[in-house]
Every structure is written in C-alpha cells, then in structure tokens.
C-alpha cells in the first residue's frame, strides 16, 4: 500500500486529511495476501479518517469520560540540531536525505508533528489512525499515515490488530517519534538510526499471562513494509517487502525485558545494482551485491528499569544481511536519567559497529575497488557519548537540551548523509527541543 500526499502543505489539519488521502495501485503486482491486506487497509483508513469528521465530541486528554468514544491526541517536537563537522550531514535516521552540517542549525532531524484519533466502538473494539509530518526521504514534510488499524481485545485478554501498525520489533521503536515519551531528544542514532522502517501493513496478535511474579507477553506480527529511503540522488524503495517477527516481553515490578526477532525479504533492489551494471560489472558480482530478494534478520534484546526518579535503558541488536553487499550491523546503548523535581539530567553511551564483509575477487581484478566501495557504504564504527537535561516545564510539555559527542573511524559513514573527503569520524551534535503530547 502506498499513500500519496502530493501537493499537501506541511502540517495540515485533520480537515485536509480526508481529501488528501489517496491510495495507489503500486503494489498490485503482489498477489494474494497483499491485495487482501491492501483492501482491509484502505477500508480501515477510510473509516479512521472519516470518524473524526463525523463525530463532534472531542476530548484531547489521556483519560476520558466513558461516554467519549472518540479521542484526539496531538504530539510534536520542535527541534533544532547543530552538527559541528562540515563533512557529513547529521540526520536522526536513514529515512532523511540531509540535516545539520558545518555548525548550521537545522530543524530537519528532530522536528515532528503528529495527530492521532481513536474511536472506541466498545471496550473490546477500537480503530486508531495517526498522521505524522516529519522530514522525509523526498526532502519534504509531507504527512504520512503512520498507523491506521482496528484493535480487538478478547475477553481473555488476547489482542489482535490489523491494518497499518507501528514497527515494534525493537523495544520503544514504535514510540521513537513521540519526543515527549523519550528521555532524550531523539533515540540513540547508533541503535535506531539504521532502522528507517516505521510501520507495516499487516496484523499482530499478542497475549499476556501471569508468570511467576511478573507478566509474560508474547507477540507475533506479519505484514509488508511501505517506506522509501534516500540513496544518493535516488531513492531505495523498501516497500512491499514481506516482514514477520515475534517478541517476548517479561515485566516484573520496575524491570522490563524483551527479546525480539524480525525478518524482512527485500522486494526491491537497491540503486547500487543498476549503477554497477551501467559501469560494466559482471552480472555474477552484481547479483552477489544486490539486495533483491535478500533477507535481513533483526535480533534484539532490551532492558528497562524504571523506579521512582530513576530510569535506565539498555538495548542491543544484531542485523544479519543475506546480501554480500550490505554489512551486518551490531549496536548497543545504555542510557540513565534521574528526576529531580521537574528536571531530569540524563547521560548515556552507544556504539555501532559493522564487522566488514569481504568479497575477494582475486589479485589484480579491475572490479575489486568498486566492490570495496560498495561494501564501504554500509560501514559504521563509532561510539557516541550523550548527556543532556529534560525540563518538564508544564504538564504534557518539556524542553530538552542535549549534547552528543560522536567519535568514530573515518570510514564510519553509514549513519550520516553526504559525507565528503576529510571526514575523520568525529562530530559533536548540540540539540534543543520542545516536546508536547496532549
């Protein structure tokens, strides 16, 4: 499913949403389940978009009177980031084509505006839609339907959702755009930056049971991705790729743990293959480096401790790429915060690393340099030291200031855009942001 918001100004109101939502038939080549999901998704989107327009009683609060079937929520971040290096563009994740560089302040990496409508038919059935505007792959703030799904809860607590769902295969991944819920301005670049996927069109099923003194939750999900990322002067379409996965969460008192697995089989190749073919690379090499029909596997673990004023997060992941052209990826971060009144200072450290894959073509092979260059595209080897302060200056609003000191090797370029000669792997990023969520 591809949602087209052409000719829409940034940050439109909900009034415009019903008019601007269109679906294209870009995915009609994918038969069977995909078409069914498309149909369900289209129906749900129509319903979700129409519901706010039809019902007049709105209540922008977290807790609502029983009689309020419809609730509206707004969230956003007005952020400014300033990266010191002139040799890279600092972005918050790989879905953005450019950001801050050379000491210039940029609102692109962190600024977000979102609106969500929930319509509850009963305690067991609800439809939800969320529209988000942020700086995207095509260099615009064109709004995107981030989520549009129906949520069913059975009497025994089993939950089923179908439609467009947030990617939930890393802990906190589905809330990373909601700055007010995050301790830092934006989640760890090293950990989340390589994940440009925010939603899937599909379904998930979850169930929570009591286990020991805690709660054990299992979730399975499956669907199709629907996003693009900028890639040089072109875009790489990650959409239409089948994805499935599962999480196990255990929660006891102040501790939450998660193990997760997800896999995605790329439907579309990356632009590198066409470029290599045009340069005369042999087909066998192009195929080895291609991403077409290659599987990416995401393994992750996470731990959160949240007690009174203390917050602690640790996560680690490993991404294994079937393609020889794309590096396997390892990252981890730890973050701690301590609330003192309305102020919460925080500090953390993160690390991302790709143990370089090699594709040795033999001595004096004229294509070796090109192959090595391709392998360098997805290479990272860096550590980021983070410190900052969050100030809850009024209810549902905060102001944050943050400093990230990124220290890496000169070939650590994967998580940035537009790297130029002279990049030494190090930059400092100073960020300011105001978040709200109502």
């Amino acid at each position, binding site marked *: 499913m591809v949602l087209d918001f052409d000719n829409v100004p940034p940050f439109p109101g909900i009034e415009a949403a019903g008019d601007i939502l269109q679906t294209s038939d870009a995915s009609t080549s994918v038969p069977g389940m995909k078409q069914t999901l498309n149909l369900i998704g289209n129906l749900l989107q129509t319903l979700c978009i129409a519901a706010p327009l039809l019902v007049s009683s709105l209540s922008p609060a977290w*807790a609502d009177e029983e009689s309020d079937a419809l609730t509206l*929520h707004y*969230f956003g971040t007005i952020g400014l980031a300033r990266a010191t290096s002139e040799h890279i563009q600092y972005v918050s994740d790989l879905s953005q084509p450019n950001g801050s560089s050379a000491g210039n302040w940029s609102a692109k990496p962190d600024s977000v505006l979102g609106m969500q409508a929930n319509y509850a038919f009963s305690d067991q059935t609800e439809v939800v839609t969320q529209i988000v505007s942020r700086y995207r792959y095509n260099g615009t703030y064109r709004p995107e339907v981030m989520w549009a799904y129906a949520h069913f809860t059975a009497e025994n607590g089993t939950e089923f*959702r179908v439609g467009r769902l947030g990617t939930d295969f890393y802990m906190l991944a589905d809330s990373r755009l909601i700055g007010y819920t995050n301790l830092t301005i934006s989640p760890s670049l090293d950990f989340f930056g390589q994940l440009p996927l925010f939603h899937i069109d599909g379904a998930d099923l979850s169930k929570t049971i009591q286990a020991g003194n805690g*709660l054990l939750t299992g979730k399975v999900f499956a669907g199709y991705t629907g996003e693009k990322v900028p890639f040089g002067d072109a875009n790489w379409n990650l959409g239409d790729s089948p994805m499935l996965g599962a999480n196990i969460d255990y929660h006891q008192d102040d501790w939450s743990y998660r193990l997760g697995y997800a896999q995605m089989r790329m439907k579309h190749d990356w632009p590198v293959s066409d470029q290599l073919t045009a340069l005369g690379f042999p087909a066998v090499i192009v195929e080895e480096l291609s991403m077409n029909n290659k599987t990416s596997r995401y393994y992750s673990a996470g731990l959160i401790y949240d*007690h009174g004023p203390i917050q602690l997060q640790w996560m680690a992941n490993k991404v294994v790429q079937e393609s020889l052209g794309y590096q396997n990826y390892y990252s981890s971060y730890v973050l701690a915060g301590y609330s003192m009144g309305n102020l919460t200072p925080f500090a953390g450290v993160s690390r991302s690393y790709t143990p370089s894959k090699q594709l040795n073509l033999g001595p004096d092979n004229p294509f070796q340099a090109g192959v090595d260059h391709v392998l360098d595209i997805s290479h990272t080897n860096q550590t980021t030291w983070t410190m900052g302060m969050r100030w809850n200056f009024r209810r549902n609003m905060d102001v944050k200031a943050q400093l990230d000191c990124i220290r890496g090797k000169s070939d650590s370029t994967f998580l940035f855009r537009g790297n130029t000669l002279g990049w030494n792997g190090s930059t400092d990023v100073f960020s300011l942001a105001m978040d709200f969520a109502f």
Partner: protein
Amino acid sequence: MKSNRLTRIIRCTLLLALMISAPVNADVVVIVSANCDATALSRREIINIFMGRYRFLPSGHAAKPYDLPTTDPRKAQFYLALTGKKISDIDAYWARLVLTGNASPPDEASSQEAMLDKIARNPWSIGYLDRSIIDNRVRVIFDPEH
C-alpha cells in the same frame, strides 16, 4: 473603608490561591464494590490494573479501573503513593502507550461522588478516593500509603 475592602479582597484571594495550590494530603484508598469477589489485591496487582499491563482480578474476570479527573490532586497523590512516579511521568507513560496503540488509560470519573457510584454499581470495577467519603456500597481493598 475602601482600603479595608481591598485588604479583605487580597486576603481572600491569597487564601483561595493557597487552597488551590496547597498539596493535598488526603487519605486516598483503593476501593472495589462490596459485591466484588476479590478479598485482597497486592500492590503489584493494582499497579498492573491501573497501568494497563494486566487488567484481571484474581478470579480471572476483567477489571475495570477508573481514574479521578486530572485536575483532582488526589490522582497525583494516588499514583505517587502507588508507583513512586510524579504525575508528569505517568502522563509520559500513557502518552507512549496510547500513541502506540498498546493500551488505554482508565476511564475517568468526573468526581469522587461519581467514582463512588461507578464502583458501587459494577462488581468488577476498581477505583480510588478519599477514605472519608466511602459508604457501605464499597470496601477498601488496598491502602497505597502503607
């Protein structure tokens, strides 16, 4: 004469402001209907119900929690006593769950009296209010301060 009236107005205004801003130190307790089959709930179980993690009573029946209005300071007092978290942290917690579609906060009762009525009517409901206003239609099942 005019000066006295002005002084009285200022005093009343200050007193009102003090009453509004003063922290409430009510005896907030968790209540269920007198007809509820649960005889005891642990702090852990009550946290799970009010924080949307696991909304079931020990009998296996789905629990229906209610919150006081956000403007009622007893709500902040309740969550601080129950979880050790300030109301701003509770707001951020619910922002995450609501905006990711993972859970909904308790429905809201418009006042303590409305809370009392809702709990009294439904044997599977659970709420909290000042101990001083409870009657024989409900019973205290947990005291978060102890």
